[in-house]
């Protein structure tokens, strides 16, 4: 088993004719993802990478029974693409697009609270259930099937941690890259809840970073609601306060919250061992299983 996606997930790719959209649709198909349709307004009736293209997500969902969407459209149109996917409706929207205006996502988030659809992202690498399906841009070859769930705010750091797990033979149930933007569809707690409910996830790795309060809140959630053991990693221990490091999430506010130290303490206080290096995270997972 797994969370969010599996081999039955029927995927529609929004923005399938763009450079990234086309490349990653091919990559997803190659990985085995059940990509059943693409959507580009005005390109309905065409075929891309062997996949039929529709003008609207609604038509793709209706004609091809798609139940998940991956959004590759440019930032200016990504908010609208999310609304379109939510209205289709599909059960899961994975928004890869980076640089979506925050106010657009705030509106999408408002809508998300009214519907049953899960959304992951934006500005995220996607979701993968190794050996079954990947939705997004994660490099499939570094993953292996197994019982470790993974949730992370960061893209390449996720790959690094997965690489260390896979090296030790610690396969993954599902990896969820939630993205580092100020407003995201699925946060740590949402993902942890899904993993807690998944009988085939025996341990979870949570990769956080400086900025915001999400890791602290997730730590409390773990302490109060989770039986599945969790190991943690926090990037940005050496980041100086007040500096913006990369994406919106990675900024330390001047006050005591949002620092690596506050996050690590919160996790450890709730029984989550935190690694100093990705290698150490893998050590902790081995101990927990």
């Amino acid at each position: 088993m797994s969370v969010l996606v599996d081999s039955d997930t029927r995927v529609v790719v929004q923005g399938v004719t763009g450079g990234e959209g086309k490349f990653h649709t091919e990559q997803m198909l190659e990985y085995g993802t059940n990509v059943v349709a693409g959507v580009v307004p005005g390109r309905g009736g065409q075929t891309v990478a062997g996949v039929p293209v529709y003008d609207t997500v609604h038509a793709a969902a209706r004609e091809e029974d798609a139940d998940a969407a991956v959004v590759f459209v440019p930032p200016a149109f990504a908010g609208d693409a999310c609304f379109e996917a939510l209205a289709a409706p599909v059960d899961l929207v994975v928004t890869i697009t980076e640089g979506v205006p925050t106010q657009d996502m705030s509106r999408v988030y408002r809508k998300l609270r009214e519907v049953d659809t899960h959304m992951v992202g934006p500005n995220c690498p996607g979701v993968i259930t190794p050996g079954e399906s990947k939705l997004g841009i994660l490099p499939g070859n570094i993953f292996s099937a197994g019982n470790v769930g993974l949730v992370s705010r960061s893209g390449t750091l996720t790959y690094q941690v997965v690489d260390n797990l896979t090296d030790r033979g610690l396969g993954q149930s599902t990896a969820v890259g939630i993205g580092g933007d100020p407003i995201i569809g699925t946060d740590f707690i949402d993902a942890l809840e899904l993993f807690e409910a998944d009988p085939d996830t025996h341990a979870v790795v949570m990769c956080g970073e400086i900025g915001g309060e999400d890791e602290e809140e997730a730590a409390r959630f773990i302490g109060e609601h989770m039986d599945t053991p969790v190991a943690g990693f926090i990037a940005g221990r050496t980041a100086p306060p007040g500096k913006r490091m990369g994406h919106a999430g990675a900024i330390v506010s001047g006050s005591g919250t949002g620092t690596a130290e506050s996050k690590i303490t919160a996790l450890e206080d709730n029984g989550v061992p935190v690694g100093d290096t990705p290698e150490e995270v893998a050590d902790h997972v081995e101990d927990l299983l």
Partner: protein
Amino acid sequence: MKLHEYQAKEVFADAGIPTPASALATTVDEAVAAAAEVGYPAAVKAQVQVGGRGKAGGIEIVESDVEAREAAEAILGMDLKGYHVDRVLVEEAVDFTNELYVGVTMDRGEGEPVAMVSTRGGVNIEAVAAEEPGAIAREHVDPGFGMHPYQARRAVYDAGVDHEVANNVADVLQTLYELWADKDGADAEVNPLMVTADGEVVAADAVMNIDDDALFRQPDLAELEEQAAEDDLEAKANEYGFDYVRLAGNVGIIGNGAGLVMTTLDLVDHYGGEPANFLDIGGGAQAERVTNALDMVFADDNVDAVVFNIFGGITRGDEVAEGINTALEQFETIPKPVIVRLAGTRSTEGMEILNTDLVQVAETLETAVQAAVTAAEEVDG
């Protein structure tokens, strides 16, 4: 993107928020003429995008042409917390009876905008928020509907604003929210919003930060954008489109993805070294970006060794390897040792391509960082 005070005030005034009479000046003579125009007492205010200007000597109240000249001479050209002052805003000094705070920002935790009012304006509002959160009235706004007028009123009355000025303050808050929404604001603040003896309100300061990701649809504001980088390297990073932060150490760091680059910094520290910078070249790193990144890190005199850590997702290891080769071949001698670690998509191919005459390779993140720390120590020693 942060607007200067004078830019934000222009935006606010255009929307109907009362602001003091003012003029921008870039020379001492202009400043004196402006002060005479707005009348005395006048404030001469350094236009730099940094907090605490007053305490740092960037704001002077002047009563005469002579004082205006002295203040302008002192402030124009000064170095204020690392920023060069090349313009001052000269404005009417407002006689006030009360100082309020009004602001709008995005509450990340709730995923929706929040409007705030406090009667504790004129001071560091973050400190008020931390020490006495009840002193700030908050209204979360449904981004579908926008801020309802009753919410502006409720925030104002909940904050305990006097009845005499409550309507005026509610109007300012409503306008501020609408500006924030229309202009893709990140933060919009008036602190202090001064209350005058005759019950008027005036925005004595103005903050407006714009969501960088939305500048594409804010062409008027994007035009205002100007580099306010602290030093030449940061200016160069802006030019190249890198996320770059200069730090105090001697191990240069280049990587892809904020989380991984931060982790690389953390590992440098973990293995006893000191990071010289944060440099994220982002996804899909082509040869040119690799060249630019190396150029930047080599240009930093503090750097003694460089660790180049790429985990390929979208980014292909072979392309990065070619980029590194191309970049380094331009140098007659490689100025600082470079340790490269490639992983992920096409990393094996990449490692094979790398010109090991020019760079040192490492198999893992840990060994790469350790090698860089050691190399930096050797150079430094």
